[in-house]
């Protein structure tokens, strides 16, 4: 316990719940597709936080919470035999190619269009994009949470953003002129 700590352990735990509750629930619900189970997983994540040594967790609280939350989600999904999640070793297969065919969502340059485009991405692309733009994690933090390499995360985000732009611009399937796509 450091001397300069601004808050007691209890306050720290409570502020962690306050700060991350919405994001963690949203993340878990998104991964599981089930609000109740998502909340259960988020609750369990916070419960586990309570028994962790603060000095080890505090510097990387966000990563820790999202990592534990993600692992719990994978456990839940594994039990339900719905292995749609990106698991370790599957990254190469999952990130290949563009987004799946768009299923009847109107392409319009609007906020709804952005979300529809996001929804059309592969699950692992959606996950890293949400961690990046909704939860504010860096590539490195996302790599830690998802067990991918930083390069892999960069590639997923790049292809995801590109697909979103293409869909919104009605240019799906066309390559941008700048540079070539490379793996890693």
């Amino acid at each position, binding site marked *: 316990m450091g001397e300069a700590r601004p808050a007691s352990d209890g306050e720290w735990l409570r502020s962690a719940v306050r700060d991350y509750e919405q994001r963690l629930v949203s993340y878990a619900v998104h991964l599981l597709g089930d609000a109740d189970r998502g909340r259960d997983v988020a609750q369990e994540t916070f419960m586990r936080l309570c*028994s962790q040594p603060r000095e080890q967790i505090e510097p990387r609280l966000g990563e820790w919470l999202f990592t534990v939350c993600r*692992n719990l989600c994978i456990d839940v999904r594994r039990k339900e035999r719905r292995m749609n999640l990106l698991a370790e070793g599957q990254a190469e297969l999952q990130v290949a190619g563009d987004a799946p065919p768009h299923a009847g969502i109107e392409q319009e340059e609007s906020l709804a269009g952005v979300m529809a485009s996001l929804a059309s991405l592969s699950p692992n692309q959606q996950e890293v994009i949400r961690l990046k733009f909704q939860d504010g994690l860096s590539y490195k933090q996302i790599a830690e949470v998802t067990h991918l390499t930083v390069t892999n995360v960069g590639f997923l985000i790049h292809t995801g*953003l590109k697909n979103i732009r293409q869909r919104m611009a009605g240019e799906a399937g066309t390559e941008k002129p700048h540079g070539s796509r490379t793996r890693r």
Partner: protein
Amino acid sequence: MTRGIDDIRLTGFALGELDGAEQVAVQAYVEESESARRYVQEVRATARLLGGELSRELAAVSTAPNGGGLTDAQHAAIEEEIERALRRQPAVHDMAIRLRRRNIAVMALSMAASVLIVFLALSILMPYLFHHTEVVKEPANHPHDKHETPYYLTDGHTPRDQRAPIPLPVPNLPVPSVADAHHPSIDEPAPPDDWSPLAVHQPHIGPDEGDLSPHDSPLVGVPHGDLPLPTPPLRLVQGGHGRAGRAADTQRAPEQGHPGSNFYSSVNTHSVGTQSTRPALGIGPAPDASGYEPFTDAGFTAATGASTAAFPVEVSAAGYTNLRRFMNYDRLPPPETIRIEEMLNAFTWAAPSPGPDQAIATVAELSPCPWNPDHRLARIVLKARELGSTRPPLNVIFLVDGSESMAADWKMPLLKKALKQSLGLIGPRDQVAIVGGGHYLAPTSGAHRLTMINAIDRLESGGLARGPMSIAMAYECAAGSLTPGDLTRVILVTDGDWEHGLADRAAAERLVEQHARSGVGLSILELGTPNLGDPFMRRLAARGGGTWACADGYAEIRKALAEQLGGGLIQVAREVSAQAIFNPDVVDSYRPVGGEAHPPVPGEDFASASRPVDLGAGRQITALFEIIPIDKHLAANAQDRTALTVRIRYLEPNGQAVRILEYPLAERVTPVSKASVDFRFAASVAEFGMLLRDSKYRGAATLATALELAQQARGGDESGERQEFIDLLRRAKALAARN
């Protein structure tokens, strides 16, 4: 691509993810290249759009009714955990290290034990002598330890000789006492880091059982003469409930054949002889009609001679389970197996919660008798107070029979489903442990729902029943988590195979009784077996100060678990007895529908009128009386007259203060069609029972009338129990038509 800078790096640059030399290089490239600048701008524009919309999505969710976040109960559970964690400090970290060290030691010991066991198994060929445990997974502290799981013990290599008796290790089992409860005695495996024997229990914030919502508006009597007393403290219910099956617990003369009988005599003769080996519905054990003795239905008693009839306050629902087993095998049950009072008590009836100063509430109503319009039918429901948030913390150890026979579709799978559903009754103050079924879950706070669900998911069948070994583990587990003020209970769930491993039943009974005295009770949930109502299992539960119940379906398993977890083990009234006192000016004669009335012996006091029993929280009792009124044509002033008075006598849980509640019930001129939903449904159950019994009192009842009554009185039926009854009636009708 220029200078080796590709789109991916440009994207990273646009999002501020580059640093050092890479950042400088890309920056320089972007300044040179118009297309690169445009690309970076596009990426940033998309990122802004996306970030803004994702933030709005989060904000929109947060304004949803539940705030888009955790529920209040979940917040409370987390707060509870925070408080618990703060109390553990500063020892928690040191303890975690100690536990990890201990885990390493345990694993080393387990490996050594494994080698030893394999050696012994190969050389001695007596694999059942030893129980091999293996720590499967230790709790993860680091986030990269994926798929965190609690501690489990696997069964190792289980011998196939399921019937090999294993000596009961009584001498090795120290009986725990409350005084040393703070020292967990199970060293292997260590509890999860988040479990601490030092945990302090907090006020219950789990789901509140609350009041039962009535289906309708039954006539509720108003008590007279009860003295206001403070809400009594709670005590445990002692002694087992239930007497299902009742093969030969009472000697009864065979009932004389009813000359008008044409339903049962024609159907039962054929169907009972047709012993199916496979259930028609694919569930439940094969029924066995042997061992039941015929008995006579209680007849009418003149109110002038004996105006007071006691009715039993302890009635199990197992008779209905039995009936269903026969029906599931496309057989109509033999008359001697039918217990109408047990059928009636298998259902949930609407009843209000008693007042704050009462332990028992009563619902009573009177209407024309559906199967004999000249008669009346009185329905009486007693309901013990529910505890809700006042229930003491539970410390439950589920002892699950993992024998091969539990693998049937209607056993382990249904049990797992029901266990998971029942977790809603577990609050953060409670603790749950699981022993047997191939795994071990150390006592775990009720707040850790996922951990418990994981453990339940891992329950398996296919090993030995291992009665003595598993109960020893369960009691050790209980000893390690015994906390004064908690209700600590081992709940054994078995299909009967569990007891086959017991070499010495008497020793088992002594062991159970010994632990009950030290504060660890035993309740037994028997999954319906051919020897339904095994006296040994009931006796064991009684010796353990718990309850015995049997179940052959999901709803019954859930109901039994709900009783165990919802406070049904907590005594809210002692020595309860109940009477119906009939007014001889209104009532000519009466008879109990189902069971037999036991009029008090002249000269004896109230308490001896019926066997007084202790009532657990939330317990319900239903009784029906068929009444022959003096005036078959209801008098104009009928509603002003008291037809009967329900009188309840009980003692407070802690104390000798006698309380007597009286509920007068006026004769009420209400057509059956206008009677309450519960009244009509109860009448249907009674009609079905009388038809199956081929009772001479069945009057105009037919399966068609019973079905019509039930269909019109299904009500909300949230549990589906009424629809199931209707289905049974339909099946009975089809069977009767077939024969």
